[in-house]
């Protein structure tokens, strides 16, 4: 405990609430309020309605939700596979090689995602690989953007993994591939899981690169929200945003449940 006195604790809590509420909680609460209101002319919204949700959970909004979920799940699974593979490979490299890989995988985070989007657009609009105009270009861009996070969290977990487990397994006669599947990956499972959750959440909310790439038949939810607010349907946009938030939190909650069970093992 950093603060011991009762007064000090109260003051700290007060400071926390003053900082936390306006910055983190209130904007989200405002979205929630807006999604249920018919008018908003004064300081507070008025006229309770669930009508916006009827629009937000049907038709093109529902399609957009499915699109987002499919994109996010595919991108995070791909990113997890690629990122873990690279992290495992990097761990067995000498210092120099590992640094090169670390830097390479940091690039998509360091570069603004608009630039990544543009790069993907330019790279895959000409033969031999034309992905422009297909859903694959969106999934590809998301994968590139989130792989960095998968790589980093798995890398960090590998560093923490005691090499004694691997060595004990090898001394018992297990081939390296057997050690990987039966010992290393199960021990890394909690981190893989956390990485998957992070990738999923990032992909669900990705807008800037997606804006440059999405084809008409593959319109993710953030683009839908942007489009709705852009044409002035603020309340519908708010309802769709709440749906996006709820869907993401629901999946993250499920993922974290799996994680606690994995780390308990």
């Amino acid at each position, binding site marked *: 405990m950093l603060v011991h006195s009762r007064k000090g604790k109260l003051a700290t809590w007060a400071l926390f609430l003053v900082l936390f509420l306006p910055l983190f909680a209130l904007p989200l609460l405002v979205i929630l309020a807006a999604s249920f209101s018919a008018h908003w002319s004064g300081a507070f919204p008025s006229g309770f309605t669930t009508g916006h949700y009827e629009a937000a959970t049907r038709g093109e909004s529902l399609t957009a939700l499915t699109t987002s979920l499919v994109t996010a799940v595919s991108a995070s699974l791909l990113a997890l596979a690629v990122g873990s593979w690279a992290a495992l490979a990097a761990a067995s490299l000498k210092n120099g090689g590992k640094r090169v890989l670390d830097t390479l995988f940091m690039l998509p985070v360091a570069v603004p995602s608009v630039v990544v989007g543009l790069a993907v657009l330019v790279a895959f609009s000409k033969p031999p690989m034309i992905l422009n105009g297909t859903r694959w270009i969106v999934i590809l861009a998301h994968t590139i953007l989130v792989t960095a996070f998968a790589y980093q969290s798995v890398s960090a977990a590998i560093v923490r993994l005691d090499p004694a*487990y691997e060595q004990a397994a090898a001394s018992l006669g*297990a081939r390296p591939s057997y050690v990987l599947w039966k010992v290393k990956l199960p021990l890394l499972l909690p981190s893989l899981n956390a990485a998957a959750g992070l990738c999923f959440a990032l992909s669900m909310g990705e807008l800037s690169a997606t804006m440059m790439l999405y084809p008409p038949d593959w319109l993710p939810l953030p683009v839908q929200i942007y489009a709705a607010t852009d044409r002035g349907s603020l309340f519908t946009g708010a309802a769709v945003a709440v749906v996006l938030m709820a869907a993401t939190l629901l999946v993250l909650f499920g993922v974290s449940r799996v994680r606690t069970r994995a780390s308990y093992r």
Partner: protein
Amino acid sequence: MSSGIRFDRVSVAYGKNTVLDALDLTVEPGEVMALLGPSGSGKTTALRAVAGFVRPASGRVFIGERDVTGLPPHQRGIGMVVQQYALFPHMRVAENVAFGMKAQKVPKSEIPGRVAEALDMTGMASYARRFPRELSGGQQQRVAIARALAIRPGVLLLDEPLSALDAQLRSGMLGELARLHRELPDVSILYVTHDQVEALTLADRIAVMDKARLKDCGTPQELYRAPRTEFTASFVGNANLLPVRVGSGAVSFGATDLKVDTGDVAQGATATLCVRPHLVGLGDGPNALSGRVAEVQWRGATHRLYVDVAGERVKADLRELRTPPGIGDEVTLHFAPEDAVLLGAGVTDG
């Protein structure tokens, strides 16, 4: 399957830092060899060279007749137990023990029987369904041993297996290990430790290591009663080492003449006289040494006296004294001529 271990001039270096220098050592089939030395002496490196986790810069390692120097660890047929046990936390005890057999594709029908056998041998049969985190340190240790034995290795490598246990458990496990070895007389054991008691209790032979080199090798009795180097004498049994000048049938230590067997050490040479603290007595006697008490430690059953004699600090372990001397008192110590070993100058740095 019985197979020994042979080191043939094995050197290991990390960059320019030599951590094992031309080790020549043979562990006979069925023998328990302790590698004894302080940390950084190269003993663990030697064990890891047998396991295949370090690659020798030069020299060969043999297990039985087989040259394993270039083989990856999983093809070497060894059992290994390390200090922190490294039980797989996501597997139950029985799965841990079965791991090696599954990895080596032992027929499925055989595995449960052999798991039960290995757990029986280490007294862990009733814990088969537990996870490692539900076991105490001593129990985890037994499971780690069962896991290593279940693959029926010809060679068992033990790397400081008892150092994470408290003193009482440790002496119990020492007895267990001795019993296990009696039950498995064909298994050669390489036992790395920094604890001389473990080495003296368990080993058929002890290899004493220091600064990447083998200093001495022999049976515990040989090393204890007649150490060949100063390092062995002080590391095994914490002996007093007194600088002396050799005369005929006697040596002079400061102004005192001491009667000892000078063996083949040349007259007039300087040498080191090695006397075990528990063989030093208080009071006058043959080979008397007078000095001033520098420190008194009560250790329950014994008193340890540190006495400054002619510029050297002499240790004496005495059965508990009714009236121990105080610090600064003048006392006389003695030892029997046959209890001292003279180390010639030529062998002081093995």
